[in-house]
């Protein structure tokens, strides 16, 4: 039992650190309040990594993956967190990519995998519907076979960054009479430029436009866009969700977040002393750090299991619950730390080109919107309540 990295792993860390140092673009913003970033900025690092062959490290080698061990992938995520890089979005590399190379046919692999690797094609996820959230299998969007095509009708929602998407993967009902709702669903790839698709932005509580409604009206999609077998989509959807949850703990990013929180708490004053010296606030920070340590070791235990050949199982639900709780608490404490200056809405600041009278410290500007935004984490990817259902069923066996 040890936590030491091997010499090879240390060399690997040095190599990726140097690569990030030398190649990460300097002039792009940081993600967080996302609608401020352009499509190009969000894809910049992805495209560089695509050229280097590092955009899809977790994929099998034959599809362009890296052959990195789980520990190396962990080091990779740590080093990226250190620089706060804007990583490739998950919809292509972590979600539909693995579904395509696992369940897709050769034509589909040849058509779609290169664009996911390179970052040239932006994917979005058509899962949730107004009436199908946690009860995803009750989805109603229909796909009706018509010759060589499917005709899609319905409405998807919470479709993250669909405003930029070239392609989407959609769960559609192909057999409304199936004995169980899970049995009549198919997994279909859709070109987002197809006539009949309308993307409508949804304004969220943080003031940004991160998600959308996607309306589908008589959208004609070639039947060759079906993944795997008709009516077997639920199997692929569940596979995707399990993939989505691995790495969802976000330990490396949260560690960096704790450091930032400590910097803020060292600048803010309480009774003439830095806030971080206040026992009440210091206790909250320490609690967060301790919980994060526990999560980190739990994730490393899971990685060690993966290294020994065990796939990501139901324990990824634990990582999701604890990881998102910590991410949320981090933003909660940041808002708490900035005090009064959590209130001003940075979107309303006078744009007079003057910095003579700044409205509070820079670090306060995004504190509230980020806190608001991060409430999503315990809802998406299967809400944390659904994760507890999974633990109950898969681990406790009830």
């Amino acid at each position, binding site marked *: *039992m*040890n*936590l*030491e*990295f*091997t010499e090879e*792993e240390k060399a690997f860390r040095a190599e990726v650190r140097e690569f990030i140092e030398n190649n990460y673009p300097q002039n792009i913003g940081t993600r967080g309040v996302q609608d401020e970033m352009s499509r190009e900025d969000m894809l910049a690092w992805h495209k560089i990594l695509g050229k280097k062959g590092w955009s899809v490290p977790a994929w099998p080698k034959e599809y362009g993956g890296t052959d990195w061990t789980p*520990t190396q992938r962990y080091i990779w995520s740590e080093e990226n967190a250190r620089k706060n890089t804007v990583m490739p979005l998950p919809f292509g590399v972590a979600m539909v990519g693995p579904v395509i190379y696992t369940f897709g046919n050769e034509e589909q692999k040849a058509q779609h995998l290169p664009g996911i690797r390179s970052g040239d094609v932006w994917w979005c996820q058509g899962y949730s519907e107004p009436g199908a959230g946690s009860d995803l299998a009750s989805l109603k969007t229909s796909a009706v076979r018509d010759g060589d095509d499917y005709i899609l009708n319905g409405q998807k929602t919470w479709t993250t960054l669909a405003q930029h998407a070239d392609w989407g993967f959609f769960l559609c009902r192909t057999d409304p009479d199936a004995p169980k709702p899970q049995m009549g669903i198919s997994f279909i790839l859709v070109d987002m430029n197809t006539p009949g698709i309308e993307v409508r932005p949804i304004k969220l509580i943080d003031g940004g436009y991160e998600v959308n409604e996607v309306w589908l009206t008589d959208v004609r999609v070639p039947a060759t866009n079906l993944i795997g077998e008709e009516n077997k989509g639920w199997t692929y959807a569940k596979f995707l969700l399990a993939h989505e949850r691995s790495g969802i703990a976000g330990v490396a990013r949260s560690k960096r977040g704790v450091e930032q929180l*400590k910097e803020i708490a060292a600048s803010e004053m309480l009774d003439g002393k830095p806030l*971080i*010296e206040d*026992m009440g606030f*210091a*206790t909250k*920070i*320490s*609690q967060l*750090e*301790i*919980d994060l*340590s*526990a*999560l*980190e*070791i*739990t994730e*490393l*235990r899971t990685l*060690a299991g993966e290294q020994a050949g065990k796939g990501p199982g139901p*324990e990824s639900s*634990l990582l999701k*619950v*604890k990881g998102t709780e910590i991410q949320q608490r981090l933003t909660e404490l940041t808002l708490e730390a900035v005090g009064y200056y959590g209130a001003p809405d940075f979107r309303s600041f006078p744009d007079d080109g003057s910095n003579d009278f700044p409205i509070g410290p820079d670090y306060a500007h995004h504190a509230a919107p980020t806190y608001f935004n991060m409430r999503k984490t315990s809802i998406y990817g299967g809400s944390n*309540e659904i994760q*507890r*259902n999974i*633990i*109950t069923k898969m*681990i*406790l066996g*009830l």
Partner: protein
Amino acid sequence: MDFDFTDEQNMVRDGISRLIREQYDWDTRRGVIASESGWRPELWAQLAELGMLAAPFSEEDGGFGGATEAMIIMEEFGKGLAVEPFIPSVVCAGGFLKHGGSTAQREEYIGGIISGEMIFAFAYAEPRGRYDLANLETTAKADGSNYVLNGHKAVVIGAPWATHFVVTARTSGGQTDKDGVSVFIVAKDAQGVSTRDYATVDGRRASEVYFENVKLSGDALIGEAGNGLPLIEKVVDEATAATCAEAVGAMKVTNETTLDYSRQRKQFGVPIGSFQVLQHRMADMLMEYEQSVSMCYLATIKLDEDAATRKKNVSAAKVRIGQAGRFIGQSAIQTHGGMGMTDELAVGSYFKRLSIIEGEFGSVDHHMRRHIALTAA
């Protein structure tokens, strides 16, 4: 990086686990803690025979392992709620001798600990000292090359069974000074040592220990006079990590017992385990347990690093495991309903042990403060 155990460590676990499973079932334990002596000397002899009391010592001291072995043994102790004094005698006294003992002291005592003939208790806590290891009213006054010991030590676990004590005392300085703290070995039968023995609420035995003009030779001093605090902190951190392991073992069984009960107990015509409100509580109990396992590993792995790293991680573990133990213990009683309140079920004993562990070697608040002092920069 790995979380695997060596073949030898797995053998230790198998051996101790079998012993506890076969000879320390619930009814046996009840009998033992109600008995006159309150423990099982014959089991201690068996542990010695199996080599378990040597597990955390190095080869040159006659053992074969270290902190990981102690962790494994205490985890299994926790599963069976074994009351025998592995932490006071082997981890604490053994730790002082390993890290601070002279060659002569190691030769004189470690063999006795390993063979089970000598049993130590660790007399460090005081009625007014709370968790501050340096806050000592007990004094050892130098008298030539000898010392005279006076004082009162509180809740000395395993003292009724002990042949010897390791005692912390002030040899110089003011009551809470970091300097001036020293560590001594005191035979229980030395003149001027007296005890008031009692049972604890979690099934163990302890004593108030009084020293009245106890004469100690210079050989009784472990380490350097007046500079004992770093050594005490190191040993207490090792004991804290071992206690965390015991808690992890106890939490595991508490969770399993609760899950079993939820399958059997029916209300409204169905097993209560079918109710989502209880399912989610048990999912939370499982997550708390897994986080505790992680922190127990982390604390154990970091024991041999520099003092600041060791303290930070041990405190983090004790905070997390203290909180998890409280949540799991309380949730287990709640899920068992009225039956959880009776003295008839094992779950109550696990709850009680977990509740007392919370305050052993420092409470959640104490360790939180120590963590803050080491991390808030």
